[in-house]
């Protein structure tokens, strides 16, 4: 099967500093992949490149065999690590916004998740708590029938109980041919849902292995291996 995301000698430079250097990476379809690495390892740069928010200095990044652009934006559902919604909008307005722009957005799925979480659809986004806002953002992203979900710190700002709900939402709302790429520091929380992990350090690939391989070959959990590899 063709990879959903492929990096070929991907390089991104900010001034004289390399954020990514000759990165070669291939992600298969139908997996939940953890994108892990310390701060400044190039995770966010890679995510931005995949979403066409940056342009590579060298090499190539392909999503569904296409360079990031209008066509790839139709199949990538992206959750940034910050509030990215217009705070002046109401929940139902932002839902309608998504429905207008994305052909693969399911109003029914969004409504179902919002009802399950008891989110008031007439509430202004500015009136929601940080945790509720993050849930709304995740609901919008997971209500799309995308081929690649890119989630940047999806559980970073919520309490442990909400984390479980969010992980459950991710697991139950993507189809088996889609890939979910999750970038987080909370490895132990997501370890059980991951199929594959990618370790980045100083813009280069350190490891790209399945979680099963890590457990059988290294005899360690992903969290333990991460702490060893990136020991300060």
């Amino acid at each position, binding site marked *: 099967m063709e990879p959903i995301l492929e990096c070929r000698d991907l390089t991104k430079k900010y001034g004289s500093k390399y954020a990514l250097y000759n990165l070669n990476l291939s992600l298969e379809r139908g997996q939940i992949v953890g994108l892990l690495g310390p701060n400044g390892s190039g995770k966010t740069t890679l995510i*931005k490149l995949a*979403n*066409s928010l*940056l342009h590579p200095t060298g090499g190539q990044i392909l999503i569904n065999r296409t360079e990031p652009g209008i066509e790839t934006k139709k199949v990538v559902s*992206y959750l*940034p690590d910050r*509030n990215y919604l217009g705070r002046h909008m109401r929940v139902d307005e932002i839902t309608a916004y998504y429905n207008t722009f*994305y052909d693969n957005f399911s109003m029914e799925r969004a409504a179902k998740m919002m009802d399950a979480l008891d989110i008031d659809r007439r509430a202004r986004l500015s009136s929601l708590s940080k945790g509720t806002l993050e849930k709304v953002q995740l609901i919008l992203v997971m209500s799309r029938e995308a081929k690649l979900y890119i989630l940047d710190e999806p559980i970073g700002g919520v309490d442990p109980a909400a984390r479980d709900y969010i992980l459950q939402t991710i697991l139950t709302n993507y189809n088996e041919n889609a890939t979910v790429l999750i970038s987080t520091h909370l490895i132990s929380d997501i370890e059980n849902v991951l199929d594959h992990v990618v370790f980045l350090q100083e813009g280069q690939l350190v490891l790209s292995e399945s979680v099963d391989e890590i457990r059988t070959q290294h005899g360690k959990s992903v969290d333990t291996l991460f702490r060893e590899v990136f020991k300060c």
Partner: protein
Amino acid sequence: MLGKLLKFDLKYGMKIFLLLHGILIVISLLGRFLFLDQLNFNEPDAALVSSVALFAAAIIFLLMAVCFCTWMIIAFRFYRNLFTGEGYLTWTLPASGVQHLWSKIISGSILFLLDCIIEGGCVLLLVTGCNVTEAYSVIAPDVNSELGMTLSTFALILFVIMLISGPVSVIQTYFCIAIGQLFPAHRLLGAIAAYFISSFLIQLLSFGLQIGIGLFPEYILIGPTDTADQVGTYLFTTMGYSTVMMIVIAILQYIAVHYIMQKKINLL
């Protein structure tokens, strides 16, 4: 896609826009019926002159303030939609950078156009009372002679120039904000600096152009401007050249914004 983007862009800030212009219309109506219609220009005295001067100053200030607020809505929307956290949603919509830019230019120009029409309508409402038009008819021949045309024609031409300058101002504003994005640590400051520097350069260019083609008042070709018809001729020749120059500059600024939006965006 452009239509969808336009729809949401026009919606953004529309409530404030309507509120401000609603206030302007109400004040114009009150000014017309409660103040201007009550004036008697047949017996002018010092009190009449000073009250009219004060009223005119207040109205001009109000018109400028509403125009400035419209400009702020346009600038703020561009900055917020594309370069703050909201940019993460805007830039990941299945639309190209050019579509985003044109959506913002068209919607900004529509807001400016609406602003010009409403403000022009308010001015018309204020000055078309019988007492005002009768009082003006006394001095109309002198004014027409100075302008070389009737005041209504003069106002109409000014209005058309204002309409043309709308999209030009929108592009200049976007240019400054886009330039500000090239300074990640000081984006807002960069945009303000870009505005002042580009305005200064445009003024310099305009000044040089005026001297170069002999349009500077009483400088080379025009001669004294107090001759009949000379004020209007001078004003329109100057404005004509300025408009052409501004259009050329706007095209260059558009190319720069287009390039920055295609290649140099890096959201924080």
